[in-house]
């Protein structure tokens, strides 16, 4: 399954490789590309990145497990990163995170049973002016309270 998707990404991979002075520099970018399409990094993805960059697959695996944004199992259709660092905590982030978990019936690192939403407790996302804040599918939402969280959840399809 992921093999067929990866084949469709080959032209894009070629373009990415051309931008870098050395092939190995494209490892992170190719992993992003594949994960965005497939949803997570499968062993096939690692092999595909290894093939393009000539970096041994074991080194690719190292990269996948080192960085928090790559995941080796599927996430929800929507992924939430909730900031749990100082400024967000000072302004009540813990309580709002508790509300979010209760509402979704999941813990940190889990996905709702319908596969719709996954939750990750994140370290500072550098939007402290809008604390407490979270990121949903790349977009930042700040000045959160329980009502606002409910509205954001309701807007997700």
């Amino acid at each position, binding site marked *: 399954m992921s093999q067929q998707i990866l084949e469709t990404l080959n032209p894009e991979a070629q373009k990415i490789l051309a*931008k*870098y*002075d*050395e092939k*190995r*520099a*494209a*490892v*992170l*970018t190719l*992993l*992003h590309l594949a994960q965005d399409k497939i949803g997570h990094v499968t062993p096939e993805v690692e092999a595909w990145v290894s093939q393009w*960059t000539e*970096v041994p697959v074991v*080194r690719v695996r*190292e*990269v996948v497990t*080192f*960085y*928090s*944004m*790559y995941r080796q199992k599927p996430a929800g259709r929507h992924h939430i*990163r909730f900031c*749990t*660092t*100082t*400024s967000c*905590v*000072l*302004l009540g982030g813990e309580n709002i995170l508790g509300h979010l978990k209760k509402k979704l019936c999941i813990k940190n690192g889990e996905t709702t049973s319908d596969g719709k939403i996954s939750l990750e407790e*994140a*370290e*500072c*996302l*550098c*939007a*402290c*002016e*809008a*604390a407490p804040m979270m*990121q949903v599918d*790349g*977009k*930042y939402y700040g000045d959160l309270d329980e009502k606002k969280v409910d509205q954001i959840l309701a807007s997700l399809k």
Partner: protein
Amino acid sequence: MEPILSRNFNVPDAWRLSVAQSRGAYETAKKVISSGKPLDVVAAVTASNLRGLGGAGFPTGKKWQFLPKDSSKPVYLVINADEGEPGTFKDRYILERDPHQLIEGIIISAFAIRSHKAYIYIRGEYVEPFMRLQSAVDEAYAKNYLGKNIFGSSFGLDIVVHRGAGAYICGEETALLNSLEGGKGFPRLKPPFPAIVGLFGCPTIINNVETLACVPHILKNGPEWFVKLGSPGNGGTRLFSVSGHIKKPGVYELPMGTPLREMIYKHAGGIRGDKNLKAVVPGGISAKILTANEIDVNMDYDSLRNAGTMLGSAGVIVMDETTCMVKALVYACKFFAHESCGQCSPCREGTGWAYKIVKRIHDGQGAVKDLETLLTIAKNMEGRTICVFADAAAWPIQSYITKFRSEFEEYIG
């Protein structure tokens, strides 16, 4: 004070080239590239007292001069947009609201150091800033402000915008290089310094986003003007990120050396709910904490160092009288335990144990000897690792416990 770096922050669509150009973008770069000499740019930046605004405060002109004069290898310019220091968000403002200011700074700086390839390393979670920046780079290419023969000169420059993938440590410049080379973000031993052996083994200059955004203004208005904006030895203005228990959180562009008290009570409106101030982190979570009695200090590198802390990334976190300092330290320690790259034992083990012990104290399970254990752990982390992450993790532990010891003792009972 006239805003300089933030002059376009509230101009709608200033991230688009047409709007940025109506505000003067690329005029200085054009002038410099057409008529200037690289060495003149280096001299101007050196004379301006511009210091690295990522956190370390190293003089930028001096850093550039570390490049070997006779290397046959290509020179790389790497831009550190891996903003991650808790309490800091100013680079995001530049990336999102005025990316052309950064790109113009990159063009002039690359010209100065004779580099033809720049990599912008932007943190992976900054998805929207990445899209803004990439579109700005694309627009600059379309106008031939990037690419070959820029402004009709013989100078050429390519920019690659490269996304990180979630690791605070990659803000450390040598970890960033390893990450950019496609590996784990493990810091490298120095020397050799990146100016000699950097990206792909070639001479490399790594500068922060805000630092390079200053460069066009220095070239436009002259180094003397920039020197006068700041305090002695600390040129220019600074984008201060202010957050926490403050009435008006946000980015404030103020002269280097602005008193902290003035920043909190005048510019940022004072404490939320008019409560009393308890403590302030002056330069990102790594900086030693200041008590309410210690805020009569000027916000520049030298003054804060003399006050026993640091300006760092200029991320100011304000804590009011209701703040539990034990809990604040739990969260600081959690951050460092999560983000330690794991390469050096004192840091990997130290951050993990410090978090466990502080959490235990907060949960009411602390023992009398725990505070001494924590201070010993902190001491054994400081200066014993490849990079300064372990030091940065030790400073909150030392300063919170030393300055608010009675609160910790109350928890232990």
